[in-house]
């Protein structure tokens, strides 16, 4: 059996026995799907029952200028407000590939350190690249699959519960590039940062807290998006993906340097 796949399967077996990580990984996507569709659905229902009040709320957000932009051509202020909100939710979907692999990577490596399993593992004929790849894939695969599955469920629910305009936004290049390109790249960032942090820290919670700072830029960016000050475009997501890919290469280089047999046994704390 392929050694990388052996490591992946072993990691999943171990993680599946940790109810905390398992439930967090499953509940987060459900929460984000529920928040996205629920918020849009109930806002639309409220607006349908009282259109004047909805328009007033939207007008308070100074959306008039946005109405002049081609992205929002033909949309009323309320729909523009919903679109801004939906795009903000997109960032939540990008939290999944940042958080889930971080949990898995941190748990996996600190778990190995705490159980002192690294030395016998490193004494086998596995290469450190196979070991590192296995550990990374164990985090990247579920994070990517859960992100894509959450997106799929969101699209399905949006088709039945929201308007064609909202569905169109969710199927725009911004969403598609984010989900299918940026999300896997972010999961690689998260897992690599998890590996780097885990090499210096022996406490899972501390490592998770340190790794948690990775989501701060993403959370910070939601504010200007919600206020209509920053409009996401396909080009912007493509550029962001390129930047993250370059960051991943740099982080992977550091990760590979740290993940050498000798370094692990003599320098890791």
């Amino acid at each position, binding site marked *: 059996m392929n050694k990388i796949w052996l490591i992946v399967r072993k990691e999943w077996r171990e993680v599946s026995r940790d109810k905390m990580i398992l439930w967090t990984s499953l509940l987060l996507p459900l929460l984000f799907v529920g928040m996205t569709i629920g918020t849009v659905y109930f806002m639309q229902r409220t607006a349908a029952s009282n259109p004047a009040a909805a328009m007033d709320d939207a007008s308070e957000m100074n959306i008039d200028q946005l109405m002049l932009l081609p992205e929002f051509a033909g949309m009323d202020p309320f729909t523009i407000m919903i679109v801004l909100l939906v795009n903000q939710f997109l960032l939540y979907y990008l939290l999944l590939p940042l958080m889930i692999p971080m949990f898995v990577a941190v748990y996996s490596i600190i778990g190995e350190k705490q159980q002192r399993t690294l030395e*016998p593992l490193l004494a086998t*004929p596995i290469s450190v690249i196979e070991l590192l790849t296995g550990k990374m894939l164990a985090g990247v695969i579920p994070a990517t699959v859960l992100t894509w599955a959450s997106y799929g469920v969101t699209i399905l629910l949006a088709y039945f519960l929201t308007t064609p305009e909202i569905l169109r936004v969710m199927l725009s290049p911004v969403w598609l590039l984010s989900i299918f390109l940026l999300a896997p790249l972010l999961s690689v960032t998260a897992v690599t940062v998890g590996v780097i942090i885990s090499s210096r820290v022996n406490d899972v919670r501390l490592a998770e807290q340190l790794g948690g700072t990775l989501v701060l830029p993403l959370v910070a960016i939601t504010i200007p998006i919600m206020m209509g000050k920053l409009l996401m475009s396909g080009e912007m997501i493509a550029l962001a993906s390129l930047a993250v890919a370059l960051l991943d290469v740099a982080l992977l280089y550091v990760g590979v340097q740290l993940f050498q047999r000798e370094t692990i046994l003599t320098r890791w704390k």
Partner: protein
Amino acid sequence: MIVTKGLTRQFSPRRGSEIVAVDHLNLEIQRGEIFGLLGPNGAGKTTTVRMLSCLIAPSSGEAHVGGQAVGQDDRQIRRIVGLLTESPGLYEKLDAYTNLAFYANLYEVQDVERQVKRYLDMLGLWGRHREPVVGFSKGMKQKLAIARALIHEPQVLYLDEPTAALDPEAAKTVRDFVEELKVEGRTILLCTHNLDEAERLCDRIAVLKTRLIAVDTPSNLRRRIFGRRAQVRLRQVTPEMVDAVRALPSVHGVEQADSQLYISLDDPDAATPLIVRRLVELGGEIQQVTEQTHSLEETYLSLIKEAQ
């Protein structure tokens, strides 16, 4: 089977400072031999095992395991070597079977299921093979770790403190199992602080304290340090008896303590009858004649003291 020449390892814990963990170690361990590595904490035993397992690289010198060069044929060496680390290092949330099957697959064992069952059976763990390891006793964990080290049928086995922290019964089980492995003809390098264990199991012993202090069989080491002495208890010892014994060939010296004589000599088997005959001729009433032995612990402590 294992040969080291000038094997040295230095560490640099801080910039500018260097610690020599192993200094010019020369060893030659034969196929099928159980070789003990004794030394105080920090003597370089674990570092030696790590170098021979291709886990860390030597700073200088060379080592060969099963004819393969450390630093060049590392992957090949890892295939023929089994390692039992100081702590069992098991995946505690996984069951015993999964732990072993994972390693069997990593070592590309052909019939994983059969091999895992064989070792779990042999070590009396098959009845609990589907239980998470976290619920196992220390002895059971150690047995499982030994099974893991053997799962790929290695020619060479490194055992680092195999009975440390085990209760006497579990320690005996592990020692008995190591003796069985000796019968199978595996080469075993045993790092231990337990001198009784080393004496019982090892064909030869190396005393290490960064440098190699001594290497030989336990009995030869004893002889080298303390020589051989006969102890004779008489009803009464006279000065003539002491002088007469001292004058015998192959006797190096005689000490008297009350009614006992301690006689240093080369070959007790040949000299003792002569001593007995002479003492009887002088009217000595002999109550007991024994060869005085020193424990391996005394020998070890003496060697370590000499090295200081």
